[in-house]
């Protein structure tokens, strides 16, 4: 049975409380009208369908369930997602999937700036383009972009893997293009399949960390001079 919440008449608070209290079932949300924090903090394996566009932090801190949005989303879609899935048919604004630790986020349209910022294990698939500073400080997880990436892709990236089919305007600090090995193609194939988006893995390039910024590299001229003296005396 599907429970329906019409946000034209009921509050986000009542909706979220009902979603938090549920341990199974499916929910249909109508008239979100750009409301913030819609379906944030889900913990159980429920299915949620949202008809319309949402504001900030929709499906934020998501765990286990499946959220499907038919519309566009504001900042921080599925931020800090832990598990489960979030799928949006339209575009997502800034910081989609930010700091996500697990689960799958699929954006059929474009994603704005800082998509996947500080991602920590989430997988993100974007059907369109991504904005600047995407995957900034990205720590773990895979990000797939079928379109182009704007400036400074993967700036200060750690161990996340980025797969981009289109053009990359520029790479950020310490981000480099890397070889696509068979395990990457395999992973990419899985992610494309899971997302339901159609593309050939062969068309993608992989980007990741050059690992040059991982540690400070202090000089030690004193030690060098002392060693040189030792060698000549």
């Amino acid at each position, binding site marked *: 049975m599907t429970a329906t919440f019409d946000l034209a008449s009921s509050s*986000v*608070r009542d909706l*979220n*409380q009902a979603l*938090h209290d549920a341990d199974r079932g499916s929910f249909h949300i109508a008239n979100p009208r750009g409301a*913030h*924090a819609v379906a*944030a*903090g889900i*913990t159980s394996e429920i299915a949620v369908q949202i008809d319309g566009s949402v*504001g*900030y*932090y929709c499906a*934020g*801190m998501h*765990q286990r369930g499946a959220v499907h949005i038919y519309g566009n989303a504001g*900042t*921080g879609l599925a*931020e*800090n997602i*832990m598990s489960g899935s979030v799928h949006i048919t339209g575009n997502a604004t*800034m*910081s989609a999937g*930010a*700091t996500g*630790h697990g689960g799958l986020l699929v954006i059929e349209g474009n994603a704005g700036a*800082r998509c996947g*910022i*500080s991602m*920590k*294990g989430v997988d993100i698939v974007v059907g369109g383009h991504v904005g600047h500073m995407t995957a*900034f*400080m990205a*720590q*773990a997880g895979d990000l797939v972009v079928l379109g182009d990436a704007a400036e400074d892709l993967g700036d200060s990236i*750690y*161990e996340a893997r980025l797969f981009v089919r289109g053009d990359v305007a520029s790479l950020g600090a310490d981000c480099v293009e890397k070889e696509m090995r068979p395990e990457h193609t395999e992973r990419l194939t899985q992610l494309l399949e899971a997302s339901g988006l159609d593309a050939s893995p062969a068309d993608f390039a992989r980007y990741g960390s050059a690992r040059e910024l*991982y*540690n*400070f*590299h*202090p*000089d*030690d*001229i*004193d030690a060098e001079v002392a060693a040189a003296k030792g060698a000549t005396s």
Partner: protein
Amino acid sequence: MTSHQWALRESYTFDRNVIAEIRRAANTGVYRIRGFGAKRVLPTLDDLVFLGASMSRYPLEGYREACATDVIIGERTAENPVKLDIPITIAGMSFGSLSAEAKEALGRGASSVGTSTTTGDGGMTQEERGHSSILVYQYLPSRYGMNPDDLRQADAIEVVVGQGAKPGGGGMLLGQKITERVAGMRTLPEGIDQRSASRHPDWTGPDDLEIKITQLREVVDWKVPVYIKIGAARPYYDTTLAVKAGADAIVVDGMQGGTAATQDVFIEHVGIPTIAAIPEAVRALEDLGMHRDVKLIAAGGIRSGADVAKALALGADVVSIGTAALIAIGDNSPEREDEYRELGSSAGYWEDYQDGTDPAGITTQDPELSARLDPVIAGRRLANYLQVLTLEAQTLARACGKSHVHNLDTEDLAALTVEAAAMAGVPLAGTSWVPGRSDRY
């Protein structure tokens, strides 16, 4: 030596520490990173004195009459507000920067006197949750270990915008301390020199923060209060915006505030002192008619019951301590003098929290060192210390005739220096002159 020969004369501009730093920089090519807080001379709460009761004021009996110390945070919004028995909390210090034993000791000590501890940059450990009866969960720019299950276990949430030791800067944890467990909690490779983000990843200004705070409240079903922590830089505006963003409490951390690892240039040169920050934050709350409704938690260089009472008299509701709590549980103890010497320092001077070599077993992830800290004994030391701070604050409040420490106010204070009078907004002792506010001597 002839009678007209000068004694060795150290330059005030290029003293021996300045020279040592220039030489160190020339040798290594990297900036100096260290722990502890600002070491330079700064205006402090020591520059204020209490006036005490006299003919025109009536004291309470020092030992008998009640002088309450309790505080409630978040009544306006949270189903379960935070209830503190004493107005002194333990500030956010991460597992990672501190050993598990040290976190446990802080939890034990704070819990036994009815106050809270705080997680830090790196997430919550079950040990600290278990040993802290009231635990504040920090929500930081890095979001290391940020887990909604932990968020829901917290008694309050503290959104960290900044820290007194480094307003505008992000956290740091050097490779020596990124052990397997710490790396796992933060999803980072082991042994890297970790530099945390300085900006939150999914909001950029006070309007966004307001929406973020609503989301946090939604996720925890409006059960617990939300604090905002700022490094003291522009406390009037930051406090105003934090109230606007919906905070239940604002933590203002002055430039003396301790740190586990920060660039020395940040520690000594960014932010304003605690004595200057508190009055500005209070003025903002008063201008909004929110003083005492939104709670003010002051931190940065709080050491004694006198500091506690003065911070409260300036208008804070609570103070928070970091460095002093570490010292109470054994940091910089003279018993370890030989080992501090081996590290090129001395008990009372040691500041290399970033190194992971702490002989006291507090700021380390080395299991051999951390095993030296007995969390039960250390927890008792902290409880004793917190009790002394409370007793001292109460005794000062009674001497000013106050039956609750929150009844202390700026009328009870005088300043010993013109600077302190100007910053704290209280008259220079022996005058009625508040620089910048009155021209009357």
